[in-house]
């Protein structure tokens, strides 16, 4: 498969810079803000916000599949070392699971919206807090891959190519 990609640069990537962390902006921000708008909409009785959170959630769900596609390619080229191998495994597992979780969660929301867009049951908020928590765990794992282990950074890639890692 890898020979289908352009030659790798000093980030060990076939493109200029990691794309996965850019795409996840839209999963993280949209899913978390959807939960925020749901809570504010229920607490302040502003059902107009439910429409805002619905669209954000729908967008987050679409974006996570793009994030996974780039995440898989970049993970395959990441050459993780030490504990980063475990973290990358867990990050991958949670990532795929989140795609399923977000899809089901959004499907539930779609049904609720079709029935009555002005009403949101508390159970949806409860599950929403769990999904938000799972996203934050996933963010911390991804953070450790870059900010602790420096995967795809020029310094780590050159050390890897010199056989230092």
């Amino acid at each position, binding site marked *: 498969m890898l020979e289908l990609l352009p030659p790798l640069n000093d980030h060990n990537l076939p493109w200029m810079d990691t794309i996965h962390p850019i795409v996840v*902006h839209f999963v993280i*921000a949209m899913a978390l803000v959807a939960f925020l*708008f749901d809570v504010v909409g229920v607490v302040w009785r502003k059902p107009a916000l439910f429409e805002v959170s619905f*669209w954000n959630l729908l967008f987050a769900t679409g974006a996570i599949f793009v994030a996974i596609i780039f995440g898989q390619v970049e993970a395959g080229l990441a050459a993780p070392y030490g504990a980063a191998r475990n973290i990358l495994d867990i990050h991958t597992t949670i990532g795929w699971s989140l795609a399923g979780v977000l899809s089901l969660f959004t499907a539930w929301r779609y049904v609720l919206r079709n029935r009555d867009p002005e009403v949101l049951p508390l159970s949806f908020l409860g599950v929403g807090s769990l999904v938000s928590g799972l996203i934050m765990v996933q963010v911390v794992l991804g953070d450790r891959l870059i*900010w602790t282990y420096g995967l795809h950074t020029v310094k780590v890639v050159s050390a890897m190519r010199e056989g*230092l890692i």
Partner: protein
Amino acid sequence: MDCITTPLLALAYTPEQAPLEQIAAELGANGLPYSLPIHPNLVHLTIGLFVIAIAFDVVGALYPLEKRVFRFLALPITRGGFHDVGWYNMLVCCLVSFFTVAAGFYEMLTAVPLPGVTSTFGLGGMTTMLWHGVVGVLVLAIIVAMTVWRGFQRYAWRRDMGRQVQWLYLAVGVVMFAVIGLHGTLGAQLAAEFGVHIAADQLLQAGADLHTALP
């Protein structure tokens, strides 16, 4: 009385060290007093919210064209709903971005770009960091201005109109996509090329063996 209050005041108002030195004593291998940087995480919110806010206002503005397409989908839409996303996402973006910039400046205080590196843009570490800092403040100012502008359109100038935003607002938003894209690339270079606040990069620079330093 006086002999009791004086030492207390002395304790409260004359710290033994300047705050910067107190921070310096607690820095880890990543150059921060905590394990993961905060600014890059808040950036997710700033960028995601800004882009989706403008995108949904574009969808709301082009509603007459796309309503025929949406009719074929089992997805009820309202034009006001799209513009609500445009407004509320921009509002939250504006509020969050103050913290994004604040965290960025705090973390810049202890940032050490790897020496002797030139970025893909041909800039040095300190130059890249200065550009990222100065343009970051400018981007925040523009986001605040656009939020105020958006609020006036929504609640005053275009309150009774179907299209809640001016074309100029959308044009400025799309130009900002490019500015934020370039600006974010500078930030990404600070991490991936200059190793700022990345433990592995800083440890390698210090000559450590990652087999033992980051098992």
